[in-house]
């Protein structure tokens, strides 16, 4: 994730205080970034001022009332209930932002894996070692983590290897492989564990699949669709490391 994307998140108030401060520092040091911030801010204010206050025409309310009138006689769920739900939702949803999405520390491994993936996307490079050659990537992990991960070549399946990095999950350095599918990156975290079947979940809009093979637990995270990430997991599980 580049500073450019972060400028938008900053202007939109979606950064938590620490990241906002960091970006303010970057803006102070970089004239071009400051100019970009001013442009985004000017555009946002312009749209808000000109377009955000348009009201639905009064006749539309009449039209809807008459279309729904007959239905309302028959079934009972009321607009009053809807309005009450809206008020409740406004209270519940207040203060929700992006990087402050989880102000509490992430507590499950899957959440920590997603957090690492997000941090990597924000860094200038999502990887510590950059190579599409598994014979370069695997040895790089030796001596950095207790157990170098299984690295397979999935280029033919449409998932070329980009490189690897070390993430820290539960205070443990763990090897993470990075694959690519079209323009999307997939982080694959491997931690020694017992075997079991894949499980899927979505955290903050990112799909996460976890499974175990040969005593290693894997977490794959990406903004790819669940189906595409499933194909990746399947290709990885089925690929022989010696191919």
């Amino acid at each position, binding site marked *: 994730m580049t500073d450019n994307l972060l400028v*938008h998140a900053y202007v939109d108030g979606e950064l938590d205080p620490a990241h906002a401060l960091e970006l303010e520092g970057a803006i102070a040091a970089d004239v071009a970034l400051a100019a970009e911030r001013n442009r985004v801010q000017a555009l946002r204010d*312009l749209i808000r001022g000109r*377009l955000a206050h348009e009201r639905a025409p009064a006749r539309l309310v009449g039209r809807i009332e008459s279309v729904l009138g007959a239905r309302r006689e028959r079934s009972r769920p009321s607009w009053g209930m809807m309005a009450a*739900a809206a008020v409740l939702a406004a209270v519940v949803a207040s203060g929700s*932002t992006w990087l402050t999405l989880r102000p509490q520390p992430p507590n499950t491994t899957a959440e920590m894996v997603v957090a690492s993936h997000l941090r990597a996307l924000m860094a200038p490079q999502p990887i510590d070692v950059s190579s599409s050659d598994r014979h370069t990537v695997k040895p790089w992990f030796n001596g950095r983590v207790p157990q170098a991960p299984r690295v397979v070549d999935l280029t033919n399946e449409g998932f070329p290897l980009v490189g690897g990095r070390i993430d820290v999950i539960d205070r443990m350095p763990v090897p993470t492989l990075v694959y690519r599918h079209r323009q999307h990156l997939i982080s694959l975290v491997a931690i020694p564990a017992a075997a079991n079947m894949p499980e899927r979940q979505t955290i903050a*809009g990112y799909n996460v699949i976890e499974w175990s093979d040969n005593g290693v637990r894997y977490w794959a995270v990406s903004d790819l669709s669940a189906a595409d990430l499933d194909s990746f997991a399947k290709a990885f599980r089925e690929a022989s490391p010696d191919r």
Partner: protein
Amino acid sequence: MLPHLDDGYRLARWLTGERADAEDVVQEACVDAFRGIAGFAGGNARAWVLTIVRHAAYRWLRKNRPAALVSVADLDALADTQQGQTPEAALIAKADAARLERAIAALPVPFRETLVLRDVNGLDYRDIASVTGVPIGTVMSRLARARGRLIAALGVDEPSG
């Protein structure tokens, strides 16, 4: 639905491109919402309403403006405005309403809806992700690309009126 009628109308107006068509879309969405109200599981009612309006608007687009619905793959391939487009912020702030509206109308639908949900409807990134059914990272990149195009369009001297 009625509590969020204005929001629904604003989204439909920018998705269809015409205020009269937006009224039809919102009316249909109201019927959908009324039918589905038992399925409303709590949470953000405004995002729920906007999701229903968006579905109704897409139905309308498929029927009346099929060419407007570009596939996501086409979107990935779409060239972004070249770097070096760095107009003064003051020039953007002065842009007149008609020009701004033309520039927004020219955005591909996925960019346009992200921009409208953010800057016209005022949703946060998480709600935009839930309304449009894409990850937050995609919301961020679409928003940045949409704004980049608008800045490029508003930042040059207008050729004629």
